[in-house]
């Protein structure tokens, strides 16, 4: 069991939990958090290099590093792990955000309890991304959700009780649908007479879920994961939750946890039930299309920095689900790029907002101004994050959105010319508008918050970023720029996953241009 590298993604957080349990003072706690998250970064980078090496050597298997250990044997529940390029991208994302999140919560109250919950949350996240057994996947998914309640409730600000309860109940409500969907998938996972299975790859290989059942199970799982992916109309937890959460939790939640939704939709709903995905995509296209535009418009009128960013997350995460539903290689590649890009830049945003709030004790953009003169480092970082968000070439947002819209338009044209209706085309055009709206709200914040005269003279005494804040933000900016400058590398990493085997069922229904 321990010879499999993937297990360490869960073991290291568990060791960190043990380490936190025995640490006596804040220095030891910080040491545990920093050492552990650095180890996780090292592990995920090593995994990336080794994975690319194996692919270059001609390993064509769908998932690498697979391993399976039986758990609840009579029900055929195993602890199965395996990763492909997409999972690795997500693992790297999680590691970097956990690392920077630890630095962003350097001065938190009750550090021991805070980090215990935070690490428990990330245990769930890592477990989710390495699992290929839908039972364990679901278990880790729920492990990642519940710490949010206490993290927001105890360390949050504003109307934290309301937000924490709303967030937890809505996400758990999603997982109620999800649980039914997954149990349903299990009972239809194999042709009659063969043993049932929870293993993703085996279910996809069996391809035994009848179309009728797919039409029932697909919406269940898609809505279940979609709630976490902030799909309209189930996105309402997101603004309140993010606004009330402490900095590191907002970072981790918007940066990583919301990706669980997109990844789950992709890995479970689309992959296992392609026929239903094709038939029912239009419903969810409309919903996610609304998410994209509505989120962006809402961000334009908010005055609380965190609300602006939370609504912007709704818009960007909507774009992820939107692109997945295009069932097109290019758009799906874009969706994964968007997950990475959004994860990093939104974490950067929330980190910066936390740092600014920690100094000014307000997040209202009307009560601040001229920050560029007072906090030059943080302001420049904010501008960079903003540019990434509105899709400036050279940063990650451009690469992701460009790929998504090119792919969507391509698929829209195929649909339209093939006589399959113009829904995709119309919604691609609508979703494209969000780029312009994004520019509006980003530039509005930059103008009000960073430029112009200093609004409050008390703010003149503020000091710029400390070393741990600089480390945290600089790491994220480097990552954002890396994706923007070397998109081909990431595209290669993800592309391996979109092998013909993966698109077997999808391609049977939908013409895919290559």
């Amino acid at each position, binding site marked *: 069991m321990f010879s499999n590298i993937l297990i360490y993604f869960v073991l290291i957080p568990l060791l960190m939990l043990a380490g936190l349990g025995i640490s006596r003072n804040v220095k030891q706690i910080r040491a545990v958090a920093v050492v552990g998250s650095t180890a996780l970064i090292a592990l995920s980078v090593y995994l990336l290099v080794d994975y690319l090496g194996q692919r270059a050597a001609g390993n064509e298997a769908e998932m690498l590093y697979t391993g399976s250990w039986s*758990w*609840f*044997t*009579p*029900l055929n*529940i195993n602890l199965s792990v395996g990763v492909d390029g997409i999972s690795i991208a997500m693992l790297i994302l999680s590691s970097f955000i956990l690392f920077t999140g630890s630095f962003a919560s350097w001065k938190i109250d009750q550090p021991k309890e805070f980090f215990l919950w935070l690490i428990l949350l990330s245990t769930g996240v890592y477990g989710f991304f390495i699992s290929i057994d839908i*039972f364990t996947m679901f*278990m*880790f998914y*729920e*492990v990642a959700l*519940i710490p949010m*309640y*206490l993290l927001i*409730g*105890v360390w949050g600000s504003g109307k*934290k*009780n309301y937000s*924490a*309860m709303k967030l*937890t*109940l809505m996400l*758990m*409500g999603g997982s*109620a*649908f999800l*649980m*039914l969907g997954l*149990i*349903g998938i*299990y*009972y239809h996972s194999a042709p009659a007479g063969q043993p049932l299975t929870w293993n993703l790859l085996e279910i996809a290989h069996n391809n035994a879920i009848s179309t009728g059942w797919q039409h*029932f199970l697909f919406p269940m799982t898609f809505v279940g994961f979609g709630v976490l992916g902030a799909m309209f109309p189930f996105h309402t937890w997101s603004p309140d939750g993010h606004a009330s959460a402490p900095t590191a939790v907002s970072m981790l939640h918007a940066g990583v946890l919301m990706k669980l939704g997109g990844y789950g939709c992709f890995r479970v709903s689309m992959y296992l039930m392609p026929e239903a995905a094709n038939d029912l995509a239009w419903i969810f296209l409309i919903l996610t299309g609304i998410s994209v535009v509505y989120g962006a418009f809402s961000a334009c009128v908010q005055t609380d920095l965190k609300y602006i960013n939370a609504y912007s997350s709704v818009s960007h995460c909507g774009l992820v689900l939107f692109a997945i539903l295009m069932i097109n290689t290019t758009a799906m590649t874009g969706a994964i790029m968007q997950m990475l890009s959004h994860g990093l830049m939104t974490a950067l945003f929330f980190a910066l907002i936390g740092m600014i709030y920690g100094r000014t004790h307000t997040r209202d953009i009307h009560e601040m101004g001229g920050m560029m003169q007072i906090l030059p480092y943080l302001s420049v970082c904010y501008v960079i994050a903003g540019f990434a968000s509105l899709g400036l070439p050279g940063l990650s947002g451009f690469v992701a959105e460009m790929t998504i819209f090119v792919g969507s338009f391509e698929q829209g044209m195929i649909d339209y010319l093939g006589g399959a209706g113009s829904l995709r085309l119309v919604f691609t055009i609508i979703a494209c508008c969000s780029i312009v709206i994004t520019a509006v709200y980003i530039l509005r914040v930059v103008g009000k918050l960073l430029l112009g005269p200093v609004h409050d003279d008390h703010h003149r005494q503020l000091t710029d970023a400390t070393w741990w804040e600089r480390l945290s933000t600089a790491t994220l900016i480097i990552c954002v720029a890396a994706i923007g400058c070397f998109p081909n590398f990431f595209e290669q990493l993800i592309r391996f996953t979109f092998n013909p085997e993966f698109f077997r069922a999808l391609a049977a229904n939908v013409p895919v241009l290559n």
Partner: protein
Amino acid sequence: MDYSQFLAMKQEIGLLIVFLLVFLYDTFMPKKALNGTSVFTCVVFAIYTALCFCCCMTDTWATTFSGMYATSPAIAAIKNILNVGALIVLIQSCKWANSDEQVVRRGEFYELLLATLFGMYLMISARHFLLFVIGLESASLPLAAMVAFNKNRYESHEASIKYLLTAVFSSAVFMMGLSFVYALAGSLYYTDIYCAISTQPSAMLVLALAFVLAGMGFKLSLVPFHLWTADVYQGAPTVVTSYLSVISKGSAAFALLVMMVQAFGLVYSQVWEWMLYALIILTITVGNLFAMRQRNMKRFLAFSSVSQAGYIMLGIIAMNATGMASLMYYILVYVFSNLAAFGVISAIENNCGKVDMDDYNGLYRTNPRLSVAMMLAMFSLAGIPPFAGFFSKFFIFTGAIQQGSTAIYVLVLIALINTIISLYYYLLVVKAMFINTENGCVIAPFKSACSERLGLWISVAGILLLGIVSCFYNSLLELCQTYGIF
């Protein structure tokens, strides 16, 4: 007479021996040694529980007394589960039983508790309705005495009378149903009834089964037969409440499953199914909705246990090996989770008499360990991984869905949506302890008694391990798959 048939009743005989030992110790030991009654009972019962695990799980099918009594590995297993729960209750009750007020009646408390457990054994093993009724009565009547055990408290008396009256009333309803069944089948043996009842049910049979179900519904506190629950739970001494909510409920659920499969299995889909669906939906929903508004922790757990009974019933309607194993596993996990919650409540109540949820505000600041135990119990009851409750809920749903009809998907979906409601009120407790810390805490820091801590440690260990360590569920499921439902 062939005395060897008593050998099949190993567990009952063992329990009787424990009972007699406790009785003799309590009656004949010198006054000095009487302070050890609690420890003596716990130790003897623990030894008995351990022996049962060693000896009785390997047995196969056995019926005695011309088929009135039956046992099988699955039945031995459920009895062992009840034993574990009763053991934890015994350990947790030590401090309360040795308090000044209770010390003179300490012996009776243990004897009554063991007597009710004996009755529950009979309910589970009965294959003839006469034996079943004897079991039912000997499980109910001593409990009424136990509920009244706080002699100086008015609420305790009130609860006892309420419990007694409802128990008697429900027995009467139950026996009314039985008399109809007897009229239809001409026998009270489960097997005879099974053969005699045709698959085309008459109106009389429907009425009979409705009465039987109502009688059992009182025991299980299913809605609409739950009205006694909250008052009795609130008035009874906390240890008795925990016993009532866990052991009594678990045994009744299993006995109902046995009865449904063995006696009325053929008419299940025509008659029982829709009754049970309606009962489950009502029970889960009403239990949850009422639990949300409760401020007294014992009333709160009363309604939570009403809704938990609905989930337990989901294991019954599956009518397959997975469902049965999940039911037993659910009861096992429920024993540990609920006893952890009651352990904390009774520790706090014994120490400072506070039972309101508002008194728990900020408990984490003063008593961090108790609040963590309570939080684990709440998470487990709500079904949050990686705690045992998640697995038991997941498996009970898996077992139910195996049946495969569309109606069951709808039923499970309703149950799942209800888990969200239940999560809300379980989180209220967590919120009180961890988040509402502004005004300090009315409960001063205290060190709970050894026995209470031991009981809590066992319960918490169960919550943490029963799910992640898969062998418990695996062995139960293998047992049920190997030996069929019974």
